[in-house]
């Protein structure tokens, strides 16, 4: 596939790089490679890189004076040999308790979809999800890979307080609320894992390109893990992902 990439100035300090407007693994891979190459470049004075499904925004330290020059520099970086970049992705196992105590929308979802509860849980936990990027809120993972049989429209009225760790489905997406917040997604379970910890130098263990696999656990296991995590005696299991 010939990759069509466009460059637009975004305010005084940023350049928005956009790929075709679709969600695809191939585009994600290209964005991740480009991002790594930019990070390797010592001559580019940037303060941040913001990733989206089909975009990468380069935020410079100073105002952009010559846009064309910056774009040419970025194009040259994009062309660098890919072998220079070593990328390692992990697969994280995230325990989720789908008990009705947490999965408060599961029964309604089963009724409306004619799937039984166990089937929704099985479809949700057997898939392998890719982290496209982290955004919106600290530690909120944008995941791709939800089985189309369990797409569920967002709820008509958002809830004001969705607890931290809630696992939910909103339209074609599934996600984990890293902190208590308002939210309109259908709630199917809860994980005791913390997705954002400001005390860590790396505040979120997952990164764009990693994989997430949910594992169904009982309420007893949830409670045990919750204690271990609060005592900082538990890390989510990770394995190196080999493509």
């Amino acid at each position, binding site marked *: 596939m010939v990759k069509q990439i466009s460059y637009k*100035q*975004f*305010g005084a300090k940023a350049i928005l790089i956009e790929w075709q407007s679709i969600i695809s693994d191939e585009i994600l891979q290209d964005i991740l490679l480009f991002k790594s190459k930019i990070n390797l470049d010592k001559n580019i004075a940037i*303060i941040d*890189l913001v990733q989206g499904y089909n975009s990468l925004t380069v935020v410079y330290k100073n105002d952009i004076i010559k846009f064309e020059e910056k774009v040419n520099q970025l194009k040259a970086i994009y062309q660098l040999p890919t072998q220079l970049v070593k990328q390692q992705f992990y697969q994280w196992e995230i325990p989720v308790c789908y008990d009705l105590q947490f999965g408060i929308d599961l029964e309604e979802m089963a009724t409306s979809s004619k799937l039984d509860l166990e089937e929704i849980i099985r479809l949700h936990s057997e898939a392998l999800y890719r982290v496209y990027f982290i*955004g919106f809120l*600290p530690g*909120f993972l944008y995941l791709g890979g939800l089985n189309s049989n369990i797409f569920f429209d967002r709820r008509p009225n958002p809830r004001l307080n969705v607890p931290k760790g809630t696992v939910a489905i909103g339209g074609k997406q599934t996600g984990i609320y890293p902190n208590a917040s308002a939210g309109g997604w259908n709630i199917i379970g809860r994980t005791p894992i913390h997705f954002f910890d*400001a005390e860590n130098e790396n505040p979120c263990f997952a990164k764009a390109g990693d994989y997430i696999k949910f594992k169904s656990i009982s309420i007893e296991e949830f409670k045990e893990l919750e204690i271990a995590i609060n005592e900082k005696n538990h890390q989510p299991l990770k394995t190196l992902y080999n493509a």
Partner: protein
Amino acid sequence: MLKILKTGFLSSIQDKGRFGFASKGVPISGAMDAYSADLANAILNNAETDAVIEVTLGNCTFQFLADTTICITGGDFTPKLNGTTIQLNKIIPIFKTDILTFQKVNYGVRCYLAVKGGFLTDQILGSKSYYSIITNSNSIHKGDLLPYHELREISSKIQSSIKINKNHYKETEIACYKGPEFHSLDDEQKKFLLETTFTISKDNSRMGYKLNELLVNELPQLLTSSVFPGTVQLTKSGTLIVLMRDCQTTGGYPRILQLTEQAINQLAQKTSSDSFKFKVKLI
């Protein structure tokens, strides 16, 4: 230490903000009116990155527990030291037990209190700026003790206050660039956007300002992409949202304008029912 005796509407510690953590979804934060915060640090000859207190709409009382010098910039909330009115934009000597109050709002929405050497609260992910998920709270509370260096010798040399440009508070033209999706608007929508006097709704905070006037549109939603302080989003219902310093890192609404840094600072001094026009400048 600075002891908080009374908190007003909202006061928080702010500096230049958190950079380099967008890949973890961390907002930038920092002083809403960075121009005024910078000015307070500059007058005290502090580092640009020193942390200051951002006071929103006055009505609070602080007590100093050690000698220092301070400077207050930004909005005028009738600051008084031990009951006597003090000037803005000027170095003020402070002695142990002095009490500073902010009361009636004369102009502006946010003022900045800087101390010599800055406030020495915890730096988390490269910044001292308050943001609830990162610093446990969005605001300072009654009884909080905020550390700063004690100053051994305070110069008694009288300093004059710096004249500031009142336009910073009165400006009704908010300068911006065309946003990445500006070109998706048709001519009539562009005309509406650039000719309408917009008013700020009650729904305005450090995260963003919703505007009252609707821009009817059928623009498609985006695949989630980057947003920044100063990004103007256009929702499906036609509401314009100007994102401010605590905004999220990504969003899915079309980004039709991007405010200049100075325009963000000017907007930070406006609140509910204040009005302005957008003025597009060329990149």
